[in-house]
């Protein structure tokens, strides 16, 4: 055996806790928050969110220092986890998202009479679970991590418990989430059962394990029950990313959830879904030998998702619903990247998906950051009309909004444009030409609502409704605090930098 193989085998044989040090760190900080709330006197409670933020920053820096981790390529915890470069990238992604959610959470929670600490606790727990999810190599690990994420989100979505909209959103997410978990679980069980059937070639006792399952599927390329299992698993994941026709929960839940949670759902939860999809449907993924099934299913999903998201967003006036539906269309563009990644022809497709995710993170959080500052006491009521005159009153927020929306719309030379370009090129190489036609049409449609939003912020002036005195006044703008301001500037600069010169991030593309 070569030295590398020895190392891998050694790492796989024992439970190596150090491999998941970042996740452990987050869990400890999360517990620390709860302890701190009990122990610290009331006047210090203001500081507790800072502990959470400091914990995330610390973990993030630690992760970056150990980015070329010794565990790369290894399987740990008896094959539950597989540490890859993609996993490292997603870890960094989720930490970044959690950091931003905590910063926005501070701004948003200040407007509500709500307990604070649990919010940050849950964000940390969910983040740790997502990080594990992105590295799971076993269906048990995948399911447990996914459920931890989902259950955390049930609470977060209905966190503003005095708001009927928030509670309704929580209930909808619960029902829909349970349905999707059920489908996912049923798919997993079918795969487990059929792969354990001794009558079939390459059957395995370890059929929850991605590696063994992949070998089994390769040996039985047209198994009927396995096909049903695969489709059900894909459907379960499609719920998480909000792909058509599993997007029905998105507008209501996005509208009702507190804005930072909406951001968390829209960015991190969606990205987690794509990390799973890449592991399952990528060209080295578990379902690689079922490309004849996976590619058409994903193609139909992607086409319908892009069209539905963009067309449905055209008529929206509530910005939370609008960004939710535009997020559906982004899921469609990302699916395009996953389809390309499932083909051996497109070398840079996986990297393109990662790049797109980061571009989407920078742009979305910039927009959500502005939304958080514009929201009033009723968080679910955020209308396009509230944006009129923003450029006059707060040029800073308006500029951030313009960069964020421009990047989402794919205006060069912002990051969103580069992300779309890379994904489209990858899809072209993979031969998904008709899907590209739909995607390009979707981009053109999306210009309508993104430009309408920018125009409302920059070029329309607010006139208080004279004729209808019952119309509630527009909520006051929240002043931008230092920490949130720095974060917003960093996000805008990130969108610009990734667009002007992808540089280091361009190396993501070299990822296989």
């Amino acid at each position, binding site marked *: 055996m070569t030295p590398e193989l020895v190392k891998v085998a050694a790492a796989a044989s024992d439970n190596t806790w150090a491999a998941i040090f970042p996740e452990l760190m987050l869990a400890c900080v999360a517990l620390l928050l709860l302890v701190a709330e009990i122990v610290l006197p009331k006047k210090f409670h203001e500081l507790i969110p800072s502990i959470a933020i400091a914990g995330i920053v610390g973990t993030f820096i630690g992760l970056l220092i150990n980015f070329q981790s010794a565990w790369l390529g290894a399987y740990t915890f008896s094959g539950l986890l597989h540490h890859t470069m993609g996993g490292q990238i997603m870890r960094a992604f989720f930490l970044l998202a959690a950091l931003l959610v905590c910063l926005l959470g501070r701004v948003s929670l200040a407007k509500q009479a709500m307990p604070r600490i649990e919010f940050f606790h849950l964000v940390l727990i969910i983040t740790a679970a997502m990080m594990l999810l992105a590295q799971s190599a076993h269906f048990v690990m995948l399911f447990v991590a996914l459920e931890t994420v989902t259950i955390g989100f049930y609470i977060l979505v209905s966190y503003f418990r005095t708001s009927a909209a928030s509670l309704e959103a929580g209930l909808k997410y619960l029902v829909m989430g349970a349905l999707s978990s059920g489908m996912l679980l049923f798919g997993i069980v079918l795969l487990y059962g059929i792969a354990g059937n001794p009558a079939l070639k390459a059957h395995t006792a370890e059929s929850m394990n991605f590696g063994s399952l992949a070998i089994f599927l390769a040996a039985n390329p047209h198994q009927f029950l396995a096909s049903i299992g695969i489709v059900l698993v894909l459907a379960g994941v499609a719920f998480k990313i909000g792909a058509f026709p599993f997007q029905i929960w998105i507008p209501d839940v996005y509208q009702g959830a507190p804005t930072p949670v909406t951001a968390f759902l829209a960015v991190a939860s969606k990205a987690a879904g794509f990390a799973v999809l890449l592991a399952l449907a990528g060209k080295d993924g578990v379902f690689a030998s079922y490309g004849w099934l996976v590619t058409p299913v994903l193609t139909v999903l992607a086409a319908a998702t892009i069209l539905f998201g963009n067309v449905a967003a055209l008529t929206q006036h509530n910005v939370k619903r609008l960004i939710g539906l535009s997020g559906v269309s982004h899921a469609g563009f990302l699916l395009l990247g996953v389809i390309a990644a499932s083909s051996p022809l497109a070398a840079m497709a996986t990297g393109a998906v990662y790049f797109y995710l980061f571009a989407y993170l920078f742009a979305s959080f910039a927009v959500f950051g502005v939304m958080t500052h514009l929201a009033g006491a009723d968080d679910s009521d955020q209308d396009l009309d509230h944006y009129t005159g923003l450029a006059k009153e707060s040029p800073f927020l308006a500029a951030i909004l313009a960069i964020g929306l421009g990047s989402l719309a794919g205006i060069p030379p912002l990051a969103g444009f580069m992300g779309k370009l890379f994904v489209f090129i990858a899809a072209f*190489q993979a031969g998904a030409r008709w899907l590209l*036609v739909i995607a390009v049409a979707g*981009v053109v449609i999306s210009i*309508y609502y993104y430009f309408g939003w920018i125009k409302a912020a*920059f*070029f329309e002036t607010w006139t208080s409704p004279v004729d209808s005195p019952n119309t509630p006044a527009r909520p006051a703008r929240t002043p931008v605090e230092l920490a949130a301001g720095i974060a917003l500037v960093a996000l805008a600069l990130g969108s610009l930098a990734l667009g002007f010169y992808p540089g280091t991030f361009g190396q993501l593309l070299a990822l296989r």
Partner: protein
Amino acid sequence: MNALPCTIYISFLGALLALGAGMRSAATARVVALLTALTSCTVTFYAASQFVPGPGLQTLIDKPWIPQMGIHYHLAADGISLTLIVLTGLAAVSGILFSWNIEERAGEFFALYLALIGGVYGVFLSADAFTLFVFYEIAIVPKYFLIANWGSTKREYGAMKLVLYSFAGSALVLAGLLWAYAAGGAHSFGLGELAQAAAHFSRHEQLGMFALVFLGFAVLAGLFPFHTWAPTGHVAAPTAASMLLAGVVMKLGAYGCLRVAMATFPVGLAFWSPLIAWLAIIGIVYAGLVALVQQDFKFVIGYSSVSHMGFVLLGLAAANATAVSGAVLQMFSHGVIAGLLFAVVGRMVYERTHTRQLADLRTMPLHRLMPFAAMTFVLAGLASMGMPGFSGFPAELTILIGAWKTSPKWALFAAVGVLIAAAFTLRVMQVSFFGTTEGTKPGSIPAHHLDHPMAPITWAERAGALLLIAAMVYVGLKPDILLNWITPALQSPLFQTALKGGAS
């Protein structure tokens, strides 16, 4: 020559400065914008004086941008791009002079205006299809906001229609370019490299790629039947934006057709050129006839733009050296003339009479009330009709001669368009400036105009108009100054292959 890329950076920098200056006062923003435009205009003239005409693009800067994808930030110029850059410089300066009366949020107006100019310079200088595309999109975005915020009639509709057409066009271009890029082995977006790779594409691929890229760019050049954004957009836009739209932005489309579509896919050009030529001729005649019956002064000019751009497209489709050089000359000529016409209609006349209805204008003896405007319009109108001595004449003549070489039928039908252009120009000239004043004593002014004496033509308007008239007459009398740049550029191997119908 090597200073040319500075025009891009100066414009974008000026946009930021104007935005800042606008926070202090509108006047400061105006001055900053004018200085910016003058500086970049001076740079182009200086570069033009140093220019040694020759075949092929002269590289100005070439840096790897996204090395993983083989994308370069590659700027280069030849006689064709130089012609259009000089046009951009002139149009930018005169447009700012004609926007001197903008008071409402002047800083933002000039910032968007200069950003648009920067994008246009970028497109004309790009030698990498990707760089070109990025600048092309940058030029689209400000147009929307310029029209939607500072425009007039049905501005939001006009702005959104224009932007959706533009983005749909650029989406087609992107699709075609990506196809060529992927088919060429995903090595490079450089125009030269793409053309080399395209030589090995199958006939079907070339036909498809050419159709996508040419059609995408031609939407912005006003090719019939995709021209409908142009009249509504031009009418809705504020004066300076209409001047730029008709004067420069439509040329972006035509330039893209020539530089990217035709030079890269010669086989596609040979196949599609008859169809394009007939569409162009239909556009010339149809838009001319529509212009003949318009009741709104600005719509007449809007449709005349479509008609004149039809000549450019016809010249390109005829695909021989004479016709194409005529097309480039016509781009320059129409840019100047359309700028003048829109300036007269939108700024000089409309800002003072507050009407663009020809029926209303007919009752005002405008040639007495504003002789300068009348003089300018008559000169621009004559040039637009193709009178010798103005830039329109050598341009359209060259195109017709070139088109005759390819197919006499095309030249004959297009010549009908020249007659129609004369008809609608003379009609609108007569009705608006020399209208009948029945019911009033000859020589007197209708009573309702005495209540509001018209503001005199300002120095800014005079300067802007004189600048454009000078360019129009100078090129009309001495077209070889531009042709001496354009003709050698067409001798480059890329264009030679395209103009021979991809035979070599």
